[in-house]
């Protein structure tokens, strides 16, 4: 895409091909890379957690919540270092919820879209009982809504006053992807 060098970079997610990413389990050895996004208030803005403030806290969180998670994968670039993670949570017997977080430096390059696409392409084979993969996104988190739309999730509607996030009641956009849906 041609750009006048005097213009600022666009903040929208561009359609240029993403760098290659791979998914793997996270380990305690990832703690320093984890801290890059976990300490960032802008990354934490729409997450349920507050930014991490120490390496000890990060180690504890990884041990207690990340390594024990039933389905969580580090999103890695070619050097196998994580730039974020993606996870699947069970809502009930037939519904799973997808969530993902990416270090800010890597926003706007299609990495989250590629990670969501990879997971969505494989998860129904891995978990044949799933009838519905869903995602709940804050109304103001437009970037994350675009990720899901680009993969082919269906935007079902805005659920008003749906959850409490950091003390505020938030409207959330509900998205879903079914085993019969086509990936974009």
């Amino acid at each position, binding site marked *: 895409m041609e750009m006048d060098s005097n213009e600022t970079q666009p903040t929208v997610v561009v359609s240029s091909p993403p760098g290659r990413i791979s998914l793997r389990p996270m380990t305690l050895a990832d703690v320093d890379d984890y801290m890059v996004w976990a300490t960032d208030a802008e990354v934490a803005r729409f997450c349920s957690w507050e930014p991490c403030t120490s390496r000890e806290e990060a180690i504890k969180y990884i041990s207690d919540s990340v390594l024990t998670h039933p389905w969580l994968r580090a999103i890695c670039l070619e050097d196998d270092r994580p730039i974020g993670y993606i996870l699947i949570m069970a809502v009930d017997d037939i519904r799973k919820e997808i969530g993902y977080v990416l270090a800010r430096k890597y926003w706007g390059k299609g990495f989250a879209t590629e990670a969501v696409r990879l997971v969505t392409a494989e998860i129904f084979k891995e978990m044949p009982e799933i009838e*519905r993969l869903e995602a709940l996104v804050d109304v103001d988190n437009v970037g994350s809504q675009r990720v899901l739309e680009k993969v082919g999730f269906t935007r*079902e509607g805005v*659920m008003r006053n749906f959850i409490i996030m950091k003390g505020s009641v938030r409207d959330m956009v509900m998205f879903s992807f079914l085993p019969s849906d086509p990936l974009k």
Partner: protein
Amino acid sequence: MDIDSCTRKAVSSSPSEKIHLRPMTLSDIDDFMVWATDINVTRFCTWEPYTSQEAGIGYINSFVLPHPWLRAICLDDDRAIGSISVTPVDSIRGEIGYVIGSKYWGKGIATEAVRLVAAEIFKEKPEMERLEALVDVDNIGSQKVLEKVGFVREGVMRKFMCLKGNVRDMVMFSFLPSDSLL
């Protein structure tokens, strides 16, 4: 308004018979069995029609009496013709559900019962930020009830719930404390 141009809707906005809500008790068992045994009534419910009074008594004891908020819907004679409930989903969300005997369908009774609840529940439960309802895509009658009260139809949640062994699409509705009753 010119009387001749008035249109009468099939389901009136004020029911032809006045209803009130009150707690349900074991003495309502015979009236409960009228709607609970009716396959037309249970079509979109998660439960099968009841087949014995004993099972009905069990339901009243184990579900109705301990329920945080459940009311019988009664006509003037104070006999129950259905029930309506608000069940907590979490600390800020409550889900409304209602069932009416089929003999009383099409008279605006469910609409009036839902309106009564939506008008009062936020005073009773000030922590509630959202009253929601999930309705089967095929249950048009129940969707109309909520729309007539002023609930917002937020969207169709695909493959949302298992109903009697089938995975169903459900319409999500909500009513907030700041919303206006119609």
